[in-house]
């Protein structure tokens, strides 16, 4: 039986889709079977970041409505044969996602894959609740800034009340992933420090992903950053987070200012 993860945040644009793709690819590289599921109906994105947008025929809603079988909607990655995508619909109505439909699809995916990673839409409404509803564990994606942290706090409260696990009296595992961390700005006090974020959210840390141009470059070529550039700061940080998810203990590294300085010097010389 596989493990169901939801990648969630409350706020939009913090890096949920980037994280879903990067962790999915890193786990698949480690030999696990993985499916990444796009719950962002109407604003689908995961297919682009995975480079599969031209291969989408059927989607999650088709499966829920019985128009297509799950096996017809699943898209296998061209680079990693144990990595699959279940796309969202770009056109259909959000209300077509039903609780019972989602439950059945997740149950079926759980049978077939080691990891089922659900990319949540932004917000705290129905779509976000359905994405977390049947999860065993959650990755809360937070940027080190006040509004993102507060939205994450809100989402954590919902993980403890609106998920099936919470309703059954057990708890969902929670992992905090701080993304778009800029050491220079943190040093100048323009962002919350890692300590501040941990103090406010009191949730175990899964990793710290640096702000990096490599993320944008990777999404422009339609590849998760862990595949497009494994040696980049962001690629490495995601790969380490994936190993922690697998239960390995990997020392936590704060993307430090030295590298930032190096980047700056290098940038200046190149200019």
């Amino acid at each position, binding site marked *: 039986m596989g493990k169901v993860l939801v990648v969630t945040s409350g706020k939009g644009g913090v890096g949920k889709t980037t994280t879903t793709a990067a962790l999915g690819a890193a786990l698949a590289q480690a030999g696990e079977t993985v499916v990444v599921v796009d719950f962002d109906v109407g604003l689908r994105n995961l297919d682009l970041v995975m480079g599969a947008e031209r291969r989408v025929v059927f989607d999650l809603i088709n499966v829920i409505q019985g128009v297509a079988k799950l096996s017809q909607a699943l898209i296998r990655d061209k680079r990693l044969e144990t990595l699959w995508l279940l796309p969202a619909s770009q056109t259909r109505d959000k209300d077509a996602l039903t609780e019972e439909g989602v439950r059945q699809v997740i149950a079926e995916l759980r049978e077939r894959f080691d990891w089922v990673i659900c990319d949540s839409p932004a917000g*705290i409404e129905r779509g976000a609740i359905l994405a977390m509803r049947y999860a065993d564990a959650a990755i809360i994606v937070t940027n080190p800034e006040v509004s993102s942290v*507060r*939205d994450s*706090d*809100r989402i*954590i*409260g*919902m993980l*403890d*009340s609106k998920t099936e696990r919470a309703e059954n009296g057990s708890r969902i595992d929670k992992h905090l992933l701080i993304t778009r961390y800029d050491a220079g700005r943190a040093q100048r006090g323009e962002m919350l420090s890692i300590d501040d974020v941990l*103090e*406010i959210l*009191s949730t175990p840390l899964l990793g710290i992903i640096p702000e990096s141009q490599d993320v944008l470059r990777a999404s422009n070529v339609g590849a998760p950053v862990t595949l497009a550039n494994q040696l980049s700061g962001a690629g490495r940080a995601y790969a380490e987070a994936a190993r922690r998810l697998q239960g390995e203990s990997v020392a936590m590294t704060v993307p430090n200012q030295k590298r930032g300085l190096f980047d700056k010097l290098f940038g200046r010389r190149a200019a």
Partner: protein
Amino acid sequence: MPIASQRTMRFLGRSYMAFVFTPEEPIIDWLAQLDSWLARSPGFFGGRPVVLDLVNVKLHKPGMVHLVACLLERGIRVIGLEGADPAQLGPDLPPLLSGRAVNSNELIALARPEQPAAAPPKQPASLLIDRPVRSGQSIIHPEGDVSVLGSVGSGAEIVAGGSIHIYGTLRGRAMAGHMGNSRARIFCQKIEAELLAINGYYRTAEEIDASYRGRPMQAWLNDNVMMITALN
């Protein structure tokens, strides 16, 4: 049809917590005060039940209708009146409530109807929350103290009949002595609160001396004025 007619209809009683407003004359000034409160905490009463206690004002029907409409304009919905002359009421006004303080034992019994409260405890029960209270969550305990082993997030709130003890950082709102207890206090390990209130007397973030931020403190009432002091 046969199925529907076999069903017996049930009307269950249930108690609710409501905020009680007690306007004073001149009402214009009272409304202005309310507006300045709302400016600091916009939307605070949105979706919350409010009861209007009219003991301190002498209003005839048109005055009551106008006051209820004024509150509605501010997003406050009055679910019932207290202290009004029954002869003045009508179908265009909320119903008159008998102002009986809610008993927390009764609330607990209502929450768990399958376990009749055989021997209700004499002391108001205190409530222990052994995890952080997250943004958007609201803990309401009409009688007794509330203790939180963790922080209260920005946008979260604790409402207690007695005192509030927070063994973490208070970033949200704490309202103690909510049912009219001016001896209630608020304690916290670190204060970054959005609002402190005791028995309806409140202070907002801007009114809390910045030098207390991040420190352990307590708040209490001295002749209806909120006092805040460091705990160390």
